[in-house]
């Protein structure tokens, strides 16, 4: 016989999802960043699907090893991956309360981001000097150059935007306006930018 009122039952069944608390123990900022990154991942997926559709539909596809400086791109990738480490260290130091060190690690991360963007710009310059444009290129497969520009460009925007975001965070950490929680949210974004590159890199340069 069910008792009138369900308070007791509720007590025993009390779970993370029972309301009155965050089920994942995270604030809205972090949760929202996770959700945003999921949706952004799908934007990139749309573009990569576009790349692969056109590429598989094209009778030929230029040999990247002859056109692009694969070694330079390897360096870019290494820089970006290392910057995720400095980012993580910065969150760690903030959590320990070592704000100065945290800001140093953040600065390193930002510099790495700019280095990546600068190398990407060199890549673009070479490519353009070789005659690549959005609608044509010397290798006779227009899709090769326009997918390159659009996808690396969109990723590059994410990197530069991320640098600005981290710069603002560094400012806030230095002033004591933000704590480890806020920085972790920024770290999620930075890790994502890194992760996406791991998909773009092989799709454009390696495979």
């Amino acid at each position, binding site marked *: *016989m*069910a*008792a*009138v*009122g*369900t*308070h007791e*039952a*509720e007590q025993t069944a009390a*779970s993370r*999802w*029972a*309301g*009155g*608390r*965050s*089920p*994942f123990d*995270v*604030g*809205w900022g972090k*949760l*929202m960043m996770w*959700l*945003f990154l*999921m*949706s*952004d*991942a*799908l*934007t*990139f*997926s*749309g*573009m990569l*699907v*576009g790349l692969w*559709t*056109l590429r598989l*539909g*094209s009778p030929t596809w230029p040999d990247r090893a002859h056109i692009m400086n694969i070694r330079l791109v390897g360096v870019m990738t290494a820089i970006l991956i290392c910057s995720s480490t400095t980012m993580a260290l910065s969150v760690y130091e903030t959590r320990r309360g070592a704000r100065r060190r945290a800001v140093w690690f953040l600065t390193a991360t930002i510099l790495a981001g700019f280095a990546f963007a600068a190398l990407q710009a060199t890549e673009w310059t070479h490519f353009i000097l070789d005659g690549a*444009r*959005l*609608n*044509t290129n010397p290798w006779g*497969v*227009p*899709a090769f150059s*326009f*997918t390159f*520009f*659009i996808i690396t460009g969109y990723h590059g925007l994410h990197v530069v935007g991320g640098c600005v975001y981290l710069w603002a965070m560094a400012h806030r950490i230095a002033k004591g306006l933000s704590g480890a929680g806020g920085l972790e949210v920024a770290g999620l974004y930075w890790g994502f930018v890194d992760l996406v590159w791991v998909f773009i890199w092989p799709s454009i340069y390696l495979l």
Partner: protein
Amino acid sequence: MDAVAVRQPEMAHEPHPRESFIRHYIFSIDHKMIGKQYFLTTMFMALVGGAMAMLMRAHLGWPDNGVLSPEQYLQAVTMHGTIMIFFFLTVMLTGGLGNLLIPLMIGARDMAFPFLNMISYWTFVPGVITILLSYFVPGGPAGNGWTAYAPLSAVPAAEGGAGLGQTLWIIAILFVVISSLFGSLNFLTTVINLRTRGMSMGRLPLTIWGAFVTAVLALLSFPVLMAALGLLLLDRLAGTSFFEASNLIIGGAASTHQGGDALLWQHLFWFFGHPEVYILILTPMGVVSDIISTFSRKPIFGYKAMVLSLAAIGFLSFLVWGHHMFVSGMHPLLGAAFMGSTIIIAIPSAIKTFNWCTTLWHGRIHFTTAMLFAIGFVSVFVTGGLSGIFLAIAPVDLYLHDTYFIVAHFHFVMASASLFAILAGTYYWFPKFFGRMMNETLGKIHFALTFLGIYGTFYPMHFIGLHSNDRRLYETTAYPFLSHTGPVDVFVSLSAFLLGFAQLFFIANFLWSLKYGPVAGDNPWHANGLEWTTTTPPPHGNWEGALPAVYRWPYDYSVPGARDDYVPQTVQAIPLVAAAGAGGGEA
């Protein structure tokens, strides 16, 4: 134990003594005001979209009168679809109803991030302005259908409206997409994090479940559309050719664009497009479930099945997009796979329908206007769902694709169903938000005329479609095989005018009731949801004092032995009619 203090991140919700006009009405961050802004803006867009429909029917009923030129006709079709889908239904259901209802129904003070909520509305407004602006540019607005198929949409020289009009179309939709993304971030975070004490996921009203799954779909499908629109814009403006195949001949000259693929657009678009149609129906399904339960004075039948089928529909909706492309020359095996997944998605839809009927069964039904529209929803949803099953069968669809049969299908299952739920919801929640009741007599006239108008307009389209009348054909009189359908078209047009006329009753009722409707109490329908436990209209921060704690699901109607036939979610122990015997409790 009894005095439960609910801990919630308090977000500066002390009543503001006096907000400036701008802070209160324009750049408000209160979810109720933002919801009203969305509601009114999208209602206005519905009028624009409706006017397009009237123009189309004026032409199609009497094609020889030359009401519209061929170009204008295609533009009217396109703008009707675009405005109704993107600027009315999508945004009304999420920005409008979602904003108004989510915090109130889960016991939150506001959205998780009220400022982003305000930004979201103010990202939508430029979209509205852009799409309206496109009427006034050389060549007029886009004329390529709401699906904007490439290469027509990618080639500025293709036809009237394919120039600046199409570019503005893309930009306008991009605004809507970004605004919706902001919205779904907020909705998901709010529902996950800000439910009040005791409001477990298993006690959420189905309206909220619908809005929640909708937000998931929007979060995962809109970004793909965003990518596609971005690439399309680049194709038009920057010289890329993602969607333009090699060697197109445009106006006698070879196009300079090389290497794209028009089918890529279709895949990306429908990967978004099918979830989108469910974005337009899941919240309505929830709204109708709640209204049917309230006015049957019975618990909703099969709550768990309702939630699971919402989730199943949400999941499956990402696997069926190919059913829009059966004629695109896809591999027959792939076609068969999409056919299979499409048939499967009909199962959860049927489960929901049976549950609505079972909820009505033996209920003590109160035929309020809201209830009539909710029952009407079930009717039009079934009618449209059944034609969906025809279309799911690939060989049948090869014949029916792009005929009026499709138009009939989705106007029943999506357009009418969504519209009915929005109207039902408006009649139902109007008292809460505006403090007054709407007029029931005018409401019932509105319902009767709308219901007749809908069936009169869309039911005959099945037959026109079976006669192979193409859905975007301008000159129906030019083909002998269509000579029998002329009178049907006249009938359809007259019904459409009736349908349009019927909405005047709604507008009049809405405006009149705002000022002269009888004052509504806090809970005029004797309903259980949390939104009815606060004052009418709800104050800033939604509840005076502490947030309510929740002890039961929102469907405890006609609990045996209880004193009243409803038990609001905040009631801990059910007041009984007699001292001994009867026990109640959660169903």
